[in-house]
C-alpha cells in the first residue's frame, strides 16, 4: 500500500492556523498569566489574531491563492474566501461583546466560576473575589477555527471533525451565564444532547454516503452520483441523514427546537456569536454538501428542502408573533431567516454568464446583511438593563425611544432590516435570494416567502412600536457601555444602512467569486 505524505498549503491555511494557534495560546495564558492580567491578554490576543487572520486572508485573496488544501480535504475557493472573511469579521465583532465589563459594574456576562454549583458558597466567593471567566476567549476561538474549516470542508470527514470542533466549545459557552445560571445550564444540556444526536445522524449519513460512493470527498461523491456503482437507496438515506445533521445546525424546522431555549439561556454575547457565526458556517456547509457533492441529485432533494423551507419560514414567523421576550423573538426570527436562506438554496441557481443572481452570491449577501443587523440587536440587548441585569421582555423595552433615541434607532434599523424594508441590507438580501429561487424555477416558493415576510414585518414592528410609542418603564435603563459593545453596535447599524444603499460592491464581489471549486 502506497501512502503519500500530505502536503500542507501553509499560506492558504494561515487564517485558520492563526485562529487555532491563538486559541491554544489562550489556554496557555489561562495557565501561565496571573489573574489580573488575563483579561487584557486574552482580549488583546483575540483582537490581534483575528485581525492578523483577516490580513492574511486578504493577502491570499490579492495573490489569488485558490485550490484544494491538505490532500483535497479542504478547498479555498471564492465562497470560502467570502465565508472566512465574514466569519472573521463577525467573530471579531461578537467576541468584542464578550469583553464588555462596564455594563454590569466591572463584570463580564460570564459566571465567575462556571464549575461552582449555582447558589453555592464557592460561587459567591468567586463572585466576591471578582473572578472572571477568561477561558471563554480560547473556547470561542476554537469554535471559530472549527467554523472556518467547516465552511471550507471538501470532504465529509473534515466536515464532521470541523462540526465537532465548532460545536463542543459552544455547548460549554452556553452554560456560562453569570445570571440565570440554571437556565443557562439547562440550555447547554439541551443543546449538547440534541447537538450530539444530530452529529450522530450526520455521522451515520457519512457512513451511508461512503457506502454508496466509496469516498468521503465531495468531488468523488459527485462523480459517483453521475456514474453509480451501487443502487441509490444508500445514497438517499445517507443524504437524508446528512441533511438532518446540517439542518439542525442552521436551525431549520423541524430541527429547530433547541434554538429558542439555547438563545435565551446562553449569555447574550454567546447568543450573538452563535446566531451569526454558527449559522454562517453551517449554511456554507449546506451549500457545499448539497451543491458540490449532491448537486447531481438536486431533483431529489429540491422538493424536500422546499418543504423544509416553507415550514421553517412559516413556523418561524408565526411563533415569533406570539413572543414577549426579545431574545426568544430574535431566536424565532433567526429560524425564519434560515427558511429564507433555504429558499435560495432550493433554487440552486448557478447564475448566468452575464452575472445574474446565483444562489451562493445571494446567500452570502443575505447572511452578511443578517449578521450586521443581528450583531447590532444583540449588542443592544446587552445594554438595556434593570437592577437584575438585562431586560428581555419586550414590555420592558417600552418607551426606549424616549430614553435613548440613539439605541432605539439602531434597534429599529436592525428590525427594519430583518423585516426586509428598503434602504436596509435586509431588503437587498431578501430580494437577492428571491431572485435566485425564481431563477431556479421556484417562483411559488418566492410567493410563500413573501407571505411569510408580511407576517414577519408585524413581528419586528411590534418591537418598534414598543420602543417608540410606548410609555417608558420605571427602572429600565440603557447601560453606559464601553467601546466593546458600542463598536459592534455602531458597525452593525452603519453596515446595515450601507448594504441597503450601496449593495453593489458586495453583490458584485459575491457574484464574481461565488462559484465553488469542485
Amino acid at each position, binding site marked *: 500500500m502506497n501512502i503519500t505524505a500530505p502536503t500542507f498549503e501553509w499560506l492558504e491555511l494561515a487564517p485558520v492556523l492563526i485562529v487555532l494557534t491563538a486559541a491554544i495560546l489562550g489556554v496557555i495564558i489561562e495557565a501561565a498569566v496571573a489573574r489580573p492580567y488575563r483579561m487584557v491578554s486574552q482580549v488583546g490576543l483575540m483582537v490581534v489574531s483575528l485581525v492578523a487572520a483577516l490580513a492574511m486572508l486578504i493577502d491570499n485573496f490579492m495573490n489569488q491563492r485558490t485550490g484544494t488544501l491538505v490532500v483535497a480535504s479542504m478547498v479555498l475557493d471564492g465562497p470560502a474566501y467570502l465565508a472566512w472573511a465574514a466569519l472573521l469579521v463577525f467573530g471579531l465583532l461578537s467576541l468584542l461583546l464578550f469583553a464588555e465589563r462596564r455594563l454590569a459594574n466591572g463584570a463580564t456576562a460570564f459566571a465567575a466560576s462556571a464549575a461552582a454549583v449555582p447558589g453555592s458558597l464557592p460561587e459567591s466567593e468567586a463572585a466576591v473575589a471578582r473572578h472572571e471567566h477568561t477561558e471563554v476567549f480560547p473556547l470561542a476561538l476554537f469554535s471559530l477555527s472549527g467554523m472556518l474549516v467547516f465552511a471550507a470542508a471538501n470532504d465529509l470527514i473534515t466536515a464532521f471533525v470541523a462540526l465537532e470542533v465548532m460545536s463542543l466549545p459552544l455547548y460549554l459557552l452556553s452554560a456560562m451565564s453569570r445570571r440565570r445560571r440554571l437556565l443557562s445550564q439547562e440550555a447547554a444540556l439541551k443543546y449538547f444532547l440534541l447537538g450530539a444526536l444530530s452529529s450522530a445522524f450526520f455521522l451515520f449519513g457519512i457512513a451511508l454516503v461512503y457506502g454508496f460512493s466509496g469516498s468521503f470527498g465531495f468531488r468523488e461523491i459527485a462523480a459517483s452520483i453521475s456514474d453509480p456503482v451501487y443502487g441509490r437507496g444508500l445514497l438517499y438515506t445517507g443524504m437524508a441523514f446528512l441533511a438532518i445533521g446540517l439542518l439542525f445546525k442552521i436551525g431549520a424546522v423541524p430541527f429547530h427546537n433547541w434554538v429558542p431555549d439555547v438563545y435565551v439561556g446562553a449569555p447574550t454575547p454567546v447568543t450573538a456569536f452563535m446566531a451569526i457565526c454558527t449559522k454562517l458556517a453551517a449554511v456554507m456547509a449546506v451549500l457545499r454538501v448539497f451543491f458540490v457533492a449532491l448537486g447531481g441529485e438536486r431533483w431529489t432533494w429540491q422538493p424536500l428542502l422546499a418543504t423544509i423551507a416553507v415550514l421553517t419560514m412559516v413556523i418561524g414567523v408565526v411563533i415569533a408573533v406570539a413572543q414577549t421576550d426579545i431574545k426568544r423573538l430574535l431566536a424565532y426570527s433567526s429560524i425564519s431567516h434560515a427558511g429564507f436562506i433555504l429558499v435560495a438554496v432550493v433554487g440552486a441557481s448557478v447564475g448566468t454568464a*452575464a*452575472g*445574474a443572481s446565483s444562489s451562493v452570491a445571494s446567500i452570502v449577501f443575505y447572511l452578511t446583511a443578517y449578521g450586521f443587523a443581528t450583531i447590532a440587536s444583540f449588542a443592544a440587548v446587552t445594554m438595556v438593563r434593570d437592577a437584575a441585569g438585562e431586560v428581555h421582555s419586550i414590555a420592558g423595552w417600552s418607551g426606549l425611544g424616549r430614553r435613548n433615541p440613539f439605541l432605539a434607532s439602531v434597534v429599529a434599523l436592525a428590525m427594519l432590516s430583518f423585516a426586509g424594508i428598503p434602504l436596509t441590507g435586509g*431588503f437587498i438580501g431578501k*430580494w437577492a435570494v428571491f431572485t435566485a429561487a425564481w431563477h431556479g424555477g421556484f417562483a411559488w416558493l418566492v*410567493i410563500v416567502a*413573501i407571505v411569510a415576510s408580511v407576517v414577519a414585518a408585524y413581528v419586528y414592528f411590534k418591537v418598534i412600536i414598543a420602543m*417608540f*410609542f410606548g410609555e417608558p418603564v420605571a427602572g429600565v435603563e440603557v447601560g453606559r457601555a464601553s467601546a466593546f459593545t458600542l463598536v459592534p453596535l455602531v458597525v452593525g447599524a452603519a453596515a446595515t444602512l450601507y448594504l441597503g444603499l450601496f449593495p453593489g460592491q458586495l453583490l458584485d464581489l459575491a457574484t464574481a467569486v461565488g462559484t465553488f471549486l469542485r
Partner: protein
Amino acid sequence: MTIPWLTFLGLVPLVGAVTLLLPVKELARVLGMFFAVITAVVGIVVTTLYVGGAALAEQVPWIQAFGAWWALGLNGMSVLMVILTVLLTPMVLLAEWKLPNAGRWSPQVFVALVLFLESLSLFTFMADDVLLFYLFFEATLIPMYFLIGGFGGEARAAAALKFLLFSLAGGLVMLVSVVGLGVVSTELSGTPTYLLSELAKLPIGTDLGRWLMIGFLVAFIVKAPMVPLHTWLPTTAEQATPGTSVLLVGILDKIGTFGMIKFCLGLFPEASLWVAPVMVILALISIIYGAVAAIGSSNLLRLVAYTSISHFGFMVLGIYTFTTVGVSGSIFYMLNHGFSTAALFLVIGFLISRRGSALVSDFGGVQKVAPVLAGVFLMAGLSGLALPGMSSFVSEFMVMAGAWSRQPWPAAVAALGTVLAAVYILLMYQRTMTGPVTEAASTHFTSDLNAREKWVAAPLLAIILLLGFVPGIALDVINPTAAATISHVGAPDPVAPFGEEGK
C-alpha cells in the same frame, strides 16, 4: 459637467432631514422650512428646465450584478407630481407650525420626518428603474409610519400599524413581480436589467405579463386606495394630524395612480387592456362607495378621507378608459386633488385646533363668528366637489368625457358620483358652518384665521383657481405624455371623443 438636477432635487430635503438630527430644538421649524423652500425652488427650476425641453435623465450603474440603475427621469406626469410635492411640503410645515409639544415626540422629529418623506417621494416619482422605484416606494412607509404613529389622535399607534401592514402587504405582492421582472429580463435578453426603457421592449408572454401586472396592480390598488383595499385610509386619516394626511393622501397615495400609468400601462399594455373592465367597475364602486360613506361620516377627517376614495375612483376610471383625454384628465386630477385635499385637510386642521374635535356634531354656526375661516372652508369644499371654475372641474370633466367616448354607462354612473359630491360637501358645510351660532362656536372660535393660516390657505386657493381658469398650463405638459401612453398601449382613441357619435 452637467448638473445632476434630479439627484440634487431629491437630496436637498434629505440633507435637511439629516441636519435636523442635530440638537437644534427651537430652530427646527425655521430650518425645516428653509430646506423645504430651497427644495421648492429647485423643484421649480427643474420644472422650468423640463418645460424648456432640457433632457434631465440621469443614469449611473447601481447594482450591476442585477442590472439595477440609479436612473432618474421626468415625463409630463412625474414633473407635475414633483411640483405638487415640493409645493405642498412647505405648506404642510407652515400649517403644522404650532404642532403641540404635548405628544411624546418633539416637533423637530415631525419636521425631520416630513423632509425625509419629501426626499423619498421625489425619488419615487423620478425613478426610471423598477428596482429603484420599488426601493423608494417601500421606503416611504418608514417616515409615514412614524408620522402617523408619533403625532395625532389617541389610537394613532394602531392606525400606523394598520397603514403599514396594508401598504407592506401590497408592496410585497409587487416585490414578487419585481423579482419576476428581473428574472424574465435575464431570460429574454441574456443580461438582467431593471431599466424601465429596456423592460418595456421585452416581449413578455401574455400569461406571464398578466401575472406580473397583477402584482404591480395590487400594490397600486392598496396605495391608491380603491375599494375593497381602502379600509386603512379612513382610520389613518382620522388619527393622523391633518398635515400628515395631506402628505399621505395628497402626495403618497398618488403613487398608486402614478404607478398604474407608468408601470402597469407602460410595461404591460396588453395585460392592462385585459384587466380594464375589472378596473372600471372597481373605480365606479370606489366613486359611489366613497361618496356615500362620506355622506355618512360624522368625523370631518374621515369624511375627507372618504371623498378622496371617491376621487381616486375618478382618476382610475380615467386611466382605464384608454383615451388620451381620459388619461390626461386623470393625471390632471392627480395634481388638482393634491391641492384641493390639502386645502380641505388643512382648513379642518384649523377648525380642530380651535375646537379640539373633528366631529361634525361639535360644530355649527361657525360662519358668523369666523367668516374668513368659513369662506376658505367653502372654497376648499367647492373645489372638492368640482365646481366649474375650480381646477377639479376641468379634470373631472375630462375623465367623464374619456369614459363616455369609450362607453357611455361608466360615465353615467360616475356622474352620479358628482351629484353625491355636492351632497357631502354642502351637507358638511351646512352642518358645521351655517345655522345659528352655537355655544361651541362662540366659545372656541374667538379668533378667525391668523396671518400664518392665511399664508397657508391663500396660495392653495390661488393655485386651485389658477388651474381652474387656465388649465392649459398644466395640460400642455400632460398631453404629450398621455398621448404617448395611449399610443404605447395601442388603444387608439374612439372617433369623435366629445359626444358627436351615435347620430
